[in-house]
């Protein structure tokens, strides 16, 4: 656990795409702390750099300048292989389009992070069953993702993100493809299942219907954090 209670610390982080006249500055010196045990939402208009920001925090995209520390480890000093292992051990992902492999059963999809870690298949599937029970899908173990509703698929994705007990969960628009009720249900599951004293959640969203689930909301515009405000959680 971080010595100062921060899971993620960003100082002066910049990131640009392209070069010359086509260069686009996606992040312009971002400073941000994400605390352990909190759910932080990143909100802002399209193209403001939200997805770039969670990508560099999750070590799937290299930043240009500045310092990113995740659980006291500096991402800037890591090799690509070290970053891959760091993600495997510490980061859980929830995607807007779920990204469940359609030819694997729900249980097999959830077991993937454990298989990547080298767990035995039977042990991984057993743990996946427990996680699916926790998100209310214990009766869908053998189903294939295309047979599930959008809300159910996103709950499977949440189970997959949590199954190896990562310390940071990053979510990209987890409710944008869902109706309001299902979106609230998914956020409820996410908050209830994922949030703990030793874990932090970062959620990128446009969906103001779920703002109430956040502990804090960081507003972004044009590659900068413009405001970080507290939000009273509803659950």
């Amino acid at each position: 656990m971080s010595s100062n209670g921060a899971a993620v610390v960003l100082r002066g982080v910049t990131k640009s795409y392209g070069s010359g006249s086509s260069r686009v500055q996606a992040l312009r010196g971002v400073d941000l702390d994400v605390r352990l045990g909190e759910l932080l939402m990143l909100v802002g208009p399209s193209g403001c750099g939200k997805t770039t920001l969670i990508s560099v925090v999750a070590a799937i995209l290299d930043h240009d300048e500045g310092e990113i520390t995740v659980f006291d480890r500096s991402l800037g000093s890591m090799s690509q292989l070290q970053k891959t292992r760091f993600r495997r051990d510490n980061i859980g992902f929830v995607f807007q389009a779920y990204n469940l492999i359609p030819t694997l059963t729900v249980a097999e999809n959830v077991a993937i992070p454990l298989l990547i870690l080298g767990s035995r298949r039977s042990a991984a599937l057993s743990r996946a069953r427990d996680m699916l029970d926790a998100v209310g899908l214990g009766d869908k173990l053998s189903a294939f993702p295309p047979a599930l509703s959008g809300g159910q698929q996103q709950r499977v994705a949440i189970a997959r993100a949590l199954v190896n007990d990562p310390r940071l969960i990053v979510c990209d628009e987890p409710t944008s493809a869902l109706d309001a009720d299902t979106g609230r249900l998914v956020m409820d599951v996410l908050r209830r299942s994922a949030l703990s004293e030793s874990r932090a959640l970062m959620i990128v969203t446009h969906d103001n219907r779920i703002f109430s689930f956040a502990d804090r909301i960081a507003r972004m515009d044009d590659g900068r954090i413009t405001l970080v405000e507290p939000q009273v959680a509803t659950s």
Partner: protein
Amino acid sequence: MYLVALKMLVGDRGKYLGLIMGLTFAALLITQQSSIFTGLMTRTFSFINDLSQPDIWVMDPKVQFIDDVKPLQDTELLRVRGVTGVEWAVPLYKGLLKARLQDGNFQIVNVLGLDDATLIGGPPVMVQGSLADLRTQDSIIVDEVGASTRLARRSVEPGGGATPLGVGDALEINDRRAVVVGICRVSRTFQSQPVIYTTYNRATTFAPRERKLLSFILVKGAEGMDPRELAGRIARGTGLAAYTADAFKRLTFDFYMRNTGIPINFGIAVTLGFLIGTAIAGQTFYNFTLEHLRYFGTLKAMGTTNGVLLRMIVLQALVVGVQGYGLGIGGAALFGYLMRGTQLAFRLVPEILILAGAAIVVIVTLSALISVRKVMKLEPAIVFKM
């Protein structure tokens, strides 16, 4: 993770079957065309195979292949018999002659004249009659395929079947009577003419008058004599060409390879099979990878190393490669089995299976390489944009 790779592969039925079909087609075409090529080329020296008794074939030095007969004087036989290490040497007549059939039709036949005393060089299998029957007057032995096809008596009725030439039937070869005393089975020859066996002296009476009529001298070495050494000794002692049976086969094979369009025709067919197989399999495998890029990206984001992803893709390629190869060579073998007994030259040897296997390995390796490159260069951050 390898089971995940296999389920990703098998779960996409359309692409999976497309991949297997592409590789099956390639393996089938490569195996089938190579087998026909091998069968055809084997026929070029089938006469040599059928005459298993002699160690050495002696002939004019200008001879380039088995059917390229350049006759010798009969006295050459005596000179060869005089070479130290020769146990026996017998004459062989081989020539294309015109036969007049009972119905008045003419047919070119391949006449083999065997040594009158020993009948060495006779057919490998007798179906009717015996080789010794050649000692009777005007006698000939005809191969069964020739007897039932080109030498058969055609029906006078339109659409009626032909009556095979049988024992007791007569032909005229160069205006001389020839009576069938036996039916034999020989290997198919490249030129496909009916084969007729008779004695050397009778063959020379069938042949048009020429000063030289001795086509080949068949030689057996004394016990313990190395055939290659003896062949060299005969060549040096007589000025004739002397080849071991294997060397004469190679000479014939090389001639056809150099001087006919067979290698290039079959080479093109095999190359086409390889290229089409590569195109179908490569394209399908690449499409498969592209469609699964989101999932490869997801696996990469979740911490799967490039090494593991590489092995997953190689495993997928290997699985479809093995299945396509098995189905392809199975199909080619079935084709050969179904075509047995026809005129098709088909010879499936282990070397062809190795060749087809190597071709499939190259195809799946190329296919996998294109896909691997795409996945290796994939930025995991792409998963947030898909």
